[in-house]
């Protein structure tokens, strides 16, 4: 199974929507999908936030999020966020994992598709 890795480096629609559109296409095509959020994207991962993202002309973000999840995709948040943003694990939605950069880099080894937004 090919791997596809996406990095989300901000909390605006221009950061998250392309990652979800392309990530869901990767997942639907049988790729193992990893989406890694840096601390700059942390606001997106507060409970209920993704559900509010309904940009004009795009599918609703939560539809794509849930599609990726149901196809086995992983959503990772950089654990540096705890210190960078003074936040706790409990401050985030429960379908993400807090991981170190080394874990992410290790898991995406050999990825054929990589994007950063």
């Amino acid at each position, binding site marked *: 199974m090919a791997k596809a890795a996406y990095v989300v480096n901000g909390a605006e629609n221009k950061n998250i929507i392309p990652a979800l559109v392309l990530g869901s*296409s990767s997942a639907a*095509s*049988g790729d193992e999908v990893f989406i890694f959020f840096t601390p700059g994207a942390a606001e997106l991962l507060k409970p209920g936030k993704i559900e509010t993202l309904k940009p004009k002309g795009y599918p609703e973000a939560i539809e*794509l999020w849930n*599609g990726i999840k149901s*196809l086995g995709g992983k959503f990772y948040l950089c654990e540096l966020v705890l210190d960078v943003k003074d936040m706790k694990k409990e401050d985030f939605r429960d379908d993400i994992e807090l991981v170190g950069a080394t874990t992410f880099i290790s898991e995406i080894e050999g990825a054929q598709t990589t994007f950063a937004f």
Partner: protein
Amino acid sequence: MAVHKLELLGLKCPQPILKIAVEAPKLQAGDILEVLADCESFPRDIEAWCKKTGRTLLFCRDEGGKYNAQVQF
């Protein structure tokens, strides 16, 4: 061999293909998935998805702005 049907009208790229991929594990080898969609990119997307995932696109017909496709698993 069973025929499964999916009505995906009104869904925008990449949702139709995403819905098909989520449905796919329910189908057995030889089953047919019949899809109705109206996303502009659907004909090329379903062709690409079948090629990538090893399924057979039996046809994808333009029926006046709606696309009717059959995929054999």
